[in-house]
């Protein structure tokens, strides 16, 4: 189990920077130095490519920057560049991701190892520019790997690792790396950067196995399948998803040796002996880390399971971690409108189906459209969990936290 305990002194740490999440990811893109970036601006992700475009004009990268007229074109151009044999990237958010929709499936169907930072923002309507996870959650079945970041540091670290994960011979699928809109994208924090050459060595040179401009090994991409082969081609997409957890862990280990920051499929915080476990994705996991020690001091065994990988979903690991607990609360920063809570809840319930000791389980939809979720709200969830442990079931399977009814 990956329990976190890191050195906290900043004395003598090199390459420290005060960066917003967007600045940190722009720096990661500069260090990765991709062949092509095609992008269209959208709040709150605009700064990533805006800052990156200054690196292009200042000659700090060799990237061909393609300013396109929509996100649909951004993803199309990125797929085209990738198919031609380039390491190609883009970044977006919310409505921009929604406009990319049909191209997302084409990126994965063509096995393009595209890495795309996505700044999580609510979807219209009503129009809202603030954070929730409904944009990328809607793309959860598009054949993309999906990595969540808690803070600016993780957004930076995950972006770099995602290049290796996507381009791994056993994967060859696109990856979206997310961070919470405004809370992380526009919040300045301490980021420990790596040296440029360390990042460049880590990501290496992209050597595609198959690409359109390889005249010695001609291939077709984007062909038509009838009833004869479509099923076989789609079936093949399940294999890299099965291989992904192992690859993600292996690259997370390697990155850990390089940086002291090890990554896996999830992070446990005071989880090992916890009776009451909160499951979270993104920036609110950091807020939970501030109240769990308070609960522990009162003798309440609280813990956190922060999921890093959402696609593929670590079903077996999650089942092993949550079975036998006194109560589990799932936090969803999007409402699946599925009839029974949000998308994380659905996955956790599914993961626990085969567990021998299924814990009482409740879903909490929170923080939609940037609604603040602070320590008091999270405390309330831990109080609810203690009641669930006594009664053996949640009073409500699905709860809406911090909403006016």
């Amino acid at each position, binding site marked *: 189990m990956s329990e976190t305990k*890191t050195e*906290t*002194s*900043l*004395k003598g740490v090199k390459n*420290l920077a*005060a960066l917003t999440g967007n600045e940190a990811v722009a720096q990661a893109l500069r260090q990765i130095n991709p062949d092509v970036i095609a992008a269209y601006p959208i709040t709150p992700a605009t700064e990533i490519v805006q800052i990156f475009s200054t690196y292009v004009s200042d000659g700090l990268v060799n990237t061909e920057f393609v300013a396109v007229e929509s996100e649909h074109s951004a993803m199309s151009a990125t797929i085209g560049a990738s198919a031609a044999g380039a390491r190609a990237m883009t970044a977006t958010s919310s409505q921009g991701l929604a406009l990319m929709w049909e191209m997302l499936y084409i990126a994965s169907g063509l096995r393009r190892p595209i890495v795309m930072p996505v700044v999580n923002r609510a979807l219209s309507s009503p129009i809202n*520019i*603030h954070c929730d996870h409904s944009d990328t959650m809607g793309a959860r079945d598009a054949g993309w790997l999906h990595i969540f970041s*808690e*803070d600016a540091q993780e957004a930076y670290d995950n972006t770099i690792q995602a290049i290796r994960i996507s381009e791994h011979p056993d994967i060859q699928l696109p990856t979206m790396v997310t961070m*919470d809109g*405004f*809370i*992380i994208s*526009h*919040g*300045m*924090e*301490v980021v420990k950067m790596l040296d440029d050459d360390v990042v460049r060595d880590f990501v290496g040179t992209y050597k595609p196995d198959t690409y359109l401009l390889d005249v010695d090994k001609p291939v077709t991409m984007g062909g038509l399948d009838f009833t004869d082969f479509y099923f076989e081609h789609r079936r093949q997409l399940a294999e890299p998803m099965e291989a992904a957890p192992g690859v993600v862990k292996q690259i997370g280990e390697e990155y850990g040796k390089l940086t002291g920051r090890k990554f896996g499929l999830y992070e446990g915080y005071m989880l090992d002996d916890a009776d009451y476990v909160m499951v979270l994705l993104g*920036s*609110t996991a*950091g*807020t939970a*880390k*501030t109240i769990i020690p308070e609960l522990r001091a009162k003798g309440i065994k609280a813990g956190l399971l922060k999921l890093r990988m959402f696609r593929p979903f670590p079903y077996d690991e999650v089942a092993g971690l949550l079975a036998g607990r006194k109560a589990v609360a799932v936090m969803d920063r999007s409402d699946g409108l599925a009839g029974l809570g949000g998308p994380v809840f659905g996955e956790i319930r599914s993961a626990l189906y085969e567990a021998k000791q299924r814990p009482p389980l409740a879903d909490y939809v929170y923080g939609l459209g940037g609604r*603040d*979720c*602070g*320590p008091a709200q999270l405390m309330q969830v831990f109080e609810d969990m203690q009641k669930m442990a006594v009664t053996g079931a949640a009073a409500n399977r699905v709860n809406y936290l911090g909403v006016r009814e």
Partner: protein
Amino acid sequence: MSKMIEIRWHGRGGQGAKTAALLFADACLGAGMYIQAFPEYGPERTGAPVASYNRISGEPITIHSAVESPSVVVILDPTLIGAVDVMKGLPQDGVVLVNTNETTEEMGKKLGLNGQKLFVLDASTISKETIGRDIPNTPMLGALVGATGMVDFDSMIEDTEAKLKKKFRNKPEVIAGNVQAIRQAYETVKAQHA
């Protein structure tokens, strides 16, 4: 400094409340502290009330929710008092700094102090005399250091100068004025310590 300090900046769109929070965070990082700086995003218009925030600590900061109960409030524009609840969440042992030409007594009454420590300075006049424009954010940065002593003044001014040089690489003439403004504000507030 292991206990986390939270700061709320009040200003109007265009006065640099966001920049002040970013500059202060950068200076605190320079002194080896963990930092957060973030603005409150709403409908941003020049002149509309805006707020920004800092968290500063000797330990890693993981909390990612709003600042509810800051220990320091910095008010860049005194016309916000009454229009915005600038004292919201400020505890009795909190500190408030106001850019104003009024006296401590007058301002204290207006704010309805309840034990909080108040510092006043005419940052707008300082700014006009040193920078040539009414941009009170950098002098208030000096005032904040003078009031709280959270970072060493000399290292703060060094860090801020470096940051300003980067930000204003096409307008180097404004840097000396800003540095002078910060210094003057720092001295003004230092003198008010009881």
